[in-house]
């Protein structure tokens, strides 16, 4: 590992351009990448003792989650389990208990791709080394993107949590080094690769994630489904976070976010629009998802995702809208 200066941030108010460095939260992704010398920061700023450790209800009914809340504590929170179960489920489908105990809300959003060529410093990778090429394009790309990719990068974002956050219309609150704060919709925090795959997200250097807001009155029916190669402890091949209401039997407020398919959590807005106001049926689900997949492109090993995904989403929608389940919940 390359040497670096280490310091601790006492509070977000102490952010300054002088103390700039890479933020260290749980370290479960950053330390790993530093051991591989894929990340080589000159300075680390430990933010785990800078506050931001509360989950609180806001006056407008929304829930504010401090960025230092661990994945374990967020998944176990009773408000989250009751009103935002898709988030609790997504977190629990991720990683292991040991990792979730350290992983934070902020760090989970900003974890980097698991593309094996990104990790292998002997291979070409535009994300790690801009301009070097992309060995995944003609290599082992079973885990790679089918939506929104570019000729420079076909990596996917690996987070489960971020997919649920996108479906819940969560908003990320940040503070820049000059003190300016902003709110970014969770589904717009990450970017598509375009010709700059080295940039995963829209945050500026030194911009700190302070908290995440979950809007009040989320859709009542929610679920997360993850398809993976082992029954525990594996990244998603594909995943889906779905939230909706049923109004006189018709689907409303439909939100679908997909994981394992793009450089960011993918809001399936075409499918959402196609389903809104419709009666639930398998034909409807598949038709809506077919529309969402109209521009999907495989790269060989991952072609199967184009067929798999509509069936995964249809399965979740079927389970959520099944009369027995809906009856249970009212």
């Amino acid at each position: 590992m390359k040497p670096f200066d280490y310091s601790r941030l006492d509070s977000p108010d102490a952010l300054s351009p002088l103390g700039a460095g890479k933020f260290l939260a749980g370290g479960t992704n950053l330390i790993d990448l530093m051991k591989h010398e894929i990340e080589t920061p000159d300075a680390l700023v430990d933010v785990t003792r800078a506050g931001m450790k509360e989950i609180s209800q806001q006056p407008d009914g929304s829930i504010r989650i401090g960025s230092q809340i661990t994945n374990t504590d967020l998944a176990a929170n009773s408000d989250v389990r009751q009103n935002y179960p898709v988030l609790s489920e997504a977190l629990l489908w991720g990683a292991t208990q040991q990792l979730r105990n350290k992983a934070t809300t902020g760090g989970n959003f900003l974890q980097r791709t698991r593309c094996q060529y990104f990790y292998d410093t002997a291979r070409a990778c535009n994300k790690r080394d801009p301009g070097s090429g992309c060995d995944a394009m003609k290599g082992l790309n079973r885990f790679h993107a089918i939506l929104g990719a570019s000729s420079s990068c076909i990596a996917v974002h690996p987070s489960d949590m971020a997919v649920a956050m996108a479906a819940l219309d969560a908003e990320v609150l940040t503070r820049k080094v000059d003190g300016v704060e902003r709110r970014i919709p969770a589904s717009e925090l990450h970017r598509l690769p375009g010709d700059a795959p080295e940039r995963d997200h829209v945050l500026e250097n030194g911009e700190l994630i302070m908290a995440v807001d979950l809007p009040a009155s989320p859709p009542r029916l929610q679920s997360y489904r993850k398809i993976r190669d082992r029954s525990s402890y594996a990244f998603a091949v594909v995943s889906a976070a779905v939230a909706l209401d049923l109004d006189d039997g018709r689907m409303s407020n439909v939100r679908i976010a997909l994981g394992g398919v793009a450089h960011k959590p993918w809001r399936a807005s075409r499918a959402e629009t196609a389903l809104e106001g419709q009666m639930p049926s398998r034909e409807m689900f598949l038709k809506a998802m077919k529309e969402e997949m109209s521009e999907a492109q495989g790269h060989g090993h991952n072609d199967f995702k184009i067929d798999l995904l509509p069936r995964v989403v249809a399965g979740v929608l079927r389970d959520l809208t099944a009369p027995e389940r809906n009856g249970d919940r009212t």
Partner: protein
Amino acid sequence: MHAMHPLRITVNGQEHRADIDPRRSLLDFARDSLNLTGPKKGCDHGQCGACTMIVNGRRINSCLSLAVSHEGDEVTTIEGLAEGSDLSALQRAFVEHDAFQCGFCTPGQICSATALLDELKEGLPSVVSSPDKLAEMDEEIRERMSGNLCRCGAYNNIVAAISSVAGDKS
């Protein structure tokens, strides 16, 4: 030249002070500076669980954590679980159920399982639990222990050992 950093940390009830290279992982600090060689370096990348320690009551992968970030923390390693020569209930259960072969993964397995029992008491959910109740205990244990790999494949006896103690508790 990058500065060394002061650290004050309590490990197995004993306070230590040291000046350390900020790059040092908690695992290397315990093994090399404190001579606590129970925690093992299996993968050094958070994938196998052999380095599991309990920090402020929660199990973590000590290989992915910088020692310097544990200022003031309370750490327990496998060396801190027995009271003198009295093994903990889980340690005894691992012996009784023959829950290891080569033993390399065992310190991590037992630290992990020790924290697991507290998580059950605390009511922390897992992905196999339903909203208001746990799944069958062996299924909960398999899911909750998935961060601890065993190259010898002693899994069945590991589950049996933990189950024998978790069963006592409920």
